[in-house]
């Protein structure tokens, strides 16, 4: 019995020191030993082989449904006027551009059915569909048994992910977070000075680097010259809480958020000791003026780090960018847009908070192959003369969507949980009314019979 414990503790110590030397220390100094790159290369080759094998299997068995990530239907993108105009053209009545016809309803009918079959919004709140299977059971949509070899590779993958990678990643995450709490608390004891700021930055970046290793994250940063500067606001599209780790690997940001209890609260309180972050009490968040004032004060102080904000307000599945809330764009200050695009082949980073809580989400992350993503820093933007916050927000949103190859939607991410506002329906009704009433003089000339 004693002997077993001794062996176990020795093994544990060896394991821990290997982790420290091979992963933690390089992470601290930002050096990569190349393990992750090698791993990704092997993974890519394996997935390509699996894709070819699956495609071959499908060609041999034509009853299997073919995979295609295109939409279900092809839509007409005409406006209401165009479509109804076309409908009416074949109508025998001469219309002079206004008046009602029985076939007008066809337009609304067709649009309604099209939206029931496929709409732009609800698909953004679930994970993206993959074109080809990536050997994870969780993305197994309709991918049936193809061959023994694929199944063996899949089984091997399960073993590697759950028995080798998962414990390693959990260890790293635990080390990273405890390092963050301990390190920031220690730095907090120093008097305010440049030394304190650099040490705080070092502690933060090290911790995030260790966490990134803990997710096998491969991040490619583009246009580093546009990196957010102090006194600015960094704005990015939101896919998951991991976005913070991704961005903070390459720079230091002041976080904005609500005060939590529990483990999050501990982390928040210690972080704020070493450098100023903006944490709000729940009651303060309701008051927009308080929020705006605190953020304004923060960016006015040029020694403080740039604020990191996700204006969508909720996690979207990384195929589109939804409406940016105008609050962050009213504060003034330079906006540094950042586009984040994950590669879903290696692991789906989207947090579907309706389906998974934080812990199961993190476990899913840690049992994926890897997190691979691209980060683009876009040139800074400022409010133009005569532009209001909403237009500015839309301009930034389009720039981010464009860069990341995402669909630019004006729908509110809050539609995940809330109903759509009636005012949109009223807009549609107004548009249609102007079509059938036309100009007032037309109505007056035809009076009631």
């Amino acid at each position, binding site marked *: 019995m004693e002997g077993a414990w001794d062996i176990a503790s020795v093994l544990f110590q060896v394991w821990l020191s290997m982790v420290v030397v091979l992963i933690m220390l390089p992470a601290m100094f930002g050096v990569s030993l190349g393990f992750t790159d090698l791993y990704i290369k092997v993974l890519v080759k394996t997935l390509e082989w699996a894709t070819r094998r699956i495609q071959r299997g499908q060609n041999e068995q034509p009853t299997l449904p073919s995979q295609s990530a295109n939409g279900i239907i092809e839509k007409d993108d005409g406006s209401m006027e165009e479509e109804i105009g076309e409908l009416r053209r074949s109508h*025998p009545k001469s219309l002079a551009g206004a008046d009602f016809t029985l*076939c007008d309803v066809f337009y609304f009918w067709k649009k309604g059915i099209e939206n*029931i079959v496929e709409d732009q919004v609800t698909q953004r709140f679930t994970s993206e569909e993959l074109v080809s299977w990536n050997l994870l059971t969780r993305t197994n949509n309709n991918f049936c048994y193809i061959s023994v070899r694929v199944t063996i590779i899949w089984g091997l993958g399960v073993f590697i992910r759950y028995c080798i990678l998962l414990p390693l990643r959990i260890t790293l995450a635990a080390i990273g977070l405890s390092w963050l709490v301990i390190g920031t608390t220690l730095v907090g004891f120093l008097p305010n000075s440049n030394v304190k700021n650099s040490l705080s930055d070092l502690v933060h970046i090290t911790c995030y680097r260790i966490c990134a290793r803990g997710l096998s994250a491969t991040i490619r940063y583009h246009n580093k010259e546009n990196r957010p500067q102090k006194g600015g606001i960094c704005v990015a599209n939101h896919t998951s809480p991991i976005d913070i780790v991704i961005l903070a690997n390459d720079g230091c940001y002041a976080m904005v958020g609500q005060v939590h209890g529990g483990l999050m609260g501990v982390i928040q309180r210690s972080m704020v000791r070493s450098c100023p972050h903006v944490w709000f009490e729940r009651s303060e968040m309701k008051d927009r003026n308080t929020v705006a004032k605190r953020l304004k004060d923060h960016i006015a102080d040029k020694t403080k780090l740039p604020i990191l904000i996700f204006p969508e307000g909720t996690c979207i599945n990384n195929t589109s960018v939804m409406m940016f809330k105008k609050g962050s764009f009213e504060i003034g200050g330079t906006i540094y847009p950042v586009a984040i695009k994950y590669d879903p082949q290696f692991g789906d980073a989207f947090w579907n908070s309706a389906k998974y809580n934080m812990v199961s989400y993190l476990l899913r992350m840690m049992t994926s192959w890897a997190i691979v993503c691209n980060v683009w820093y876009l040139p800074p933007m400022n409010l133009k003369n005569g532009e209001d916050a909403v237009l500015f927000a839309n301009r930034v949103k389009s720039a981010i969507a464009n860069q990341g190859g995402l669909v630019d939607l004006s729908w509110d991410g809050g539609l995940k949980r809330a*109903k759509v506002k009636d005012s949109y329906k009223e807009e*549609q*009704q107004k548009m249609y009314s102007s079509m059938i009433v036309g100009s007032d003089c037309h109505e007056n000339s035809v*009076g*009631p019979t």
Partner: protein
Amino acid sequence: MGSRASSLLREEDIEEIKKETGFSHSQITRLYSRFHSLDKGENGALSREDFQRIPELAINPLGDRIINAFFPEGEDQVNFRGFMKTLAHFRPVEDNEKNKGLSSGEPLNSRMNKLLFAFRLYDLDRDDKISRDELLQVLRMMVGVNISDEQLGSIADRTIQEADTNGDMCISFSEFTKVLEKVDVEQKMSIRFLH
């Protein structure tokens, strides 16, 4: 492509739906996964709230009528068969359908059935006539508060006058089809399904 739920759809069911509606195998599986993703309660049937959750449908002025078309008389739930039967009306009329004629009974997506479906959008009480009130109801849904009662009334009166041939101040189905005979119903009430 679908969620794992497509395994809940049996091959026999798919074959039956294929015969009934004319959709292809892959279209049925894709539509099933769409049905499943709308079914938040995961009970194999959709309620009106499930449809209302689609924002673009919720802002459609005729959204409620369209949703109603899926639900059989007096019921609150629609299963996948019912869902597909309603959608089948919007399948395009293919050439081979036209050539088949009426051999196996009128297919759901024939011109006549499409028009009948649109007619039923107006004719709520199913008495095969669109009365002035029924027409006004639909008009009111489409224009909201932007047009006064008098104006709307005169629009309705004019519409009925032009369509009504037998003088009963209502629009019957044959009068309805006559008015719309030049409209390309096949194209305007069809959705282009991929594969």
